[in-house]
């Protein structure tokens, strides 16, 4: 499928063209959330373009924090983050918004406006390249609306275009959210536990979709996941986080589910936060699976 017309595609200024140049690069990134509370602790890593990376770790281990640093929703206390050749942590507002167009993000709770139609929700994905505020489908150019339909078709929901977003099932809503980020023609797709509130079948569909998009659009995908088995099927590489530190970073080839699940189990000196999240049953079952 060649749905995304490349005339909308504007590579960020100074974007690296060499394929081996990392899409994302972190150097000694630390995020302090107050005295003694570290969201990220000296994280350094490079992520190659076109790869799928899964972040594993207990709730509170820093997965979301890491993802939110990649598109500047949060800024690091120390260290340097480069995404598509731009230093995210230091970009001023307009430049940050320009960079964000290149980075799609999907969330555990989808982030759709429930009362708005599916199609309009998808259209909002183009806001970064449109001037001025908009409310109502009619305010989006016809070309945008047509492309939104196409993107909905890619995720298999074109027939739901004119329903309210909150009438859809969770899995369908997540596909709408993906269609919304496709409207950005992103080069990187960030996903913060995209299947945590979905049933196994919908989860599998979403992850298959991510894999397909990587192949079709050459997307770089970074996603936080709790399900080790799904992670191993999906990813080229897994990164384990604990207390904001990278404790595991390797390719998925030859990695057994049991080894990967250790990130949840072998907590040598658990912090109180980790102990608390261990009582979270969903985490436990996810780890044991």
């Amino acid at each position, binding site marked *: *499928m060649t749905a995304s017309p490349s005339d909308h595609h504007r590579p960020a200024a100074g974007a690296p063209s060499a394929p081996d140049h990392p899409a994302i690069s972190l150097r000694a990134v630390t995020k302090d959330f107050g005295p003694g509370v570290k969201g990220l602790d000296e994280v350094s890593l490079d992520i190659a373009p076109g790869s799928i990376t899964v972040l594993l770790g207990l709730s509170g281990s820093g997965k979301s924090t890491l993802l939110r640093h990649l598109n500047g929703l949060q800024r690091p206390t120390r260290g340097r983050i480069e995404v598509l050749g731009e230093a995210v942590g230091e970009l001023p507002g307009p430049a940050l*918004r320009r960079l964000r167009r290149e980075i799609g993000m999907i969330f555990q709770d989808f982030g759709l406006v429930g009362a708005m139609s599916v199609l309009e929700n998808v259209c*909002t994905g183009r806001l970064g390249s449109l001037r001025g505020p908009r409310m109502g489908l009619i305010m989006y150019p016809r070309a945008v609306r047509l492309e939104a339909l196409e993107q909905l078709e890619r995720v298999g929901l*074109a027939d739901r*275009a*004119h329903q309210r977003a909150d009438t859809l099932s969770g899995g369908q809503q997540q596909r709408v959210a993906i269609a919304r980020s496709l409207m950005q023609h992103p080069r990187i797709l960030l996903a913060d536990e995209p299947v945590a509130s979905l049933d196994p079948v919908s989860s599998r569909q979403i992850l298959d979709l991510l894999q397909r998009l990587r192949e079709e659009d050459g997307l770089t995908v970074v996603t936080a996941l709790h399900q080790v088995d799904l992670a191993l099927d999906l990813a080229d590489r897994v990164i384990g986080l604990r207390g904001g530190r990278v404790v595991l970073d390797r390719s998925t080839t030859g990695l057994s589910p049991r080894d990967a699940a250790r990130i949840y189990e072998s907590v040598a000196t658990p912090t109180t936060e980790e102990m608390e999240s261990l009582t979270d049953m969903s985490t436990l079952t996810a780890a044991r699976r």
Partner: protein
Amino acid sequence: MSAAPVLAPPTGPRPGAAPPRTLTRPRPGGTAAAAVMLTLVALGAWSVIDLGIDLPTVLGSVGNAVAFVQRMLPLDFPPAAELAAMIGQTLAIVLLSTLLAIGLSVPLSLAAARATTRGRLSRGTARTLIVLARAIPDLVLAIVFLRLFGLGPVAGILAMGLHSVGMIGKLYADAIEELDDAPRRAVEALGGTRRQQIWTAIPLALLPQIIATGLHRFDINLRTSVLLGYVGVGGIGLAIADALRALDYQRGMALAVVVLALCIVVELTSGAIRAAILPRTDRRAAETGWADRLLARSTGTPSGPAAPSITPPWTVDRLRRLLSGAMIVLLALASVRAVEIDAGTLLGGILEIPSTLLLFLPPGFGGSASLVFADLLVTVQIALAATLLGALLAVPIGILAARTVVAHRAVHTSARLLIVIIRGIPELILAILFVVITGLGAVAGTLALALGAVGLLSKLIADSLEETDVRVQEAVRTVGASGPQVFLAATLRQAAPAVVAHVMYLLDTNIRAATLLGVVGAGGVGFLLLNAARINQFEVVTAIVLLMLLVVLAVEALALWLRRAVR
């Protein structure tokens, strides 16, 4: 839905196919809602014109305003002891009436909520009682109770207490229905009786709402008490009425300033308390401060991982809860002393209820039907015009005051401050001011209500903008959208149904308020109401109340339908 676009299979172009529909077909309900809203705006504009509110009129009154200011200066405050006694009496009346309302509302709302009461009959009865309490204006209740118990605080306490049940009971019932049902079901699943389920799951979860709504009503009742004071209940309101009747503007306005200050203090205090007790998503749970550590040390409990114990440790939170409870009890006892409730009068009054109620029946017009209807129309016009003017001013202020919309701290803090100040001025004081400035009549009432509406509506708009799901805003922000784009696409779209509901609520309150403000000569049917009571034509009071009830019910039905249509 047959309107769904027929698209080619996922891959490949669609040669020759009809262009897909990229716009949603308008729904009949949506179109009707838009038509109704446009009609209301048009009616509002017509009312503004018909009531003769225009810039020249308002500007023409500037001379009056100057003359008035000259007459009210210098302000003449009563001696401190007298003033303190007045304030004390007003606060006592307000506190007791609010506590009475809360005490009545809790059982009523439990009976009215679907989550706690299965029987249709008891639910229906409770709902009807709540609606009835809301429907009868506190002024009318006060007129009845003043006849029963004589001039004085008791009539005011009962009038406001009963009328407040209409709002408090409804909000409590709604809150109970909105509570997470899981805890109750858990108790049900482990074999608890119905009563156990309710006692386990409801009170603690509801407590913040009980207190917050109670505080909110305290604010409202404080303002109402001034109005009721006007008709003889006592406190500051009575003193203002006496001063103004004697044309002693220096004393009257000095007392108005006192009321204003009192309202602002109460508003700020109750706002702070509400903010502290209502669960906030962005607040970290269970933070322990230095005071907690100190407490832990002084009671010998080791800090850090708590030693197992079946009694909860003394924390600042626990102390605070205990002290607040004790304080409410003490204040209530002090209030009972302050208002000097006399058991004999109380009993005598209660015995007289049946015969007094008979005076109000059957409703009749006492030969002035056309006058009643003409004044009723003016009341509705005042409400429509005030809502329109108020909304025009309130929308921008509300947007500026929303923390989630305007990132600049200075902007939203000063907008919030402006709202608090406007809200602080009781509408009665505004109405008195405008009556003096623009003369007796509907213009004064409209301007007073419009200004009051700004205070209420802009706060509601700001709150509902802040209550929108920020995760949705964040999702739209990640596509690179600018602030205004995020606002329109995510924030406003989420808040739109609430904003429509708030404007309709405003219209509803304005109709009631327009009636009451007639008492001070601000136009509309209220003046007739009070006059009828004064000359013992109680059947006219009933007739007017019933007519107002019809209007209010019609507006509420319209509001209900609109809320569904724009959801």
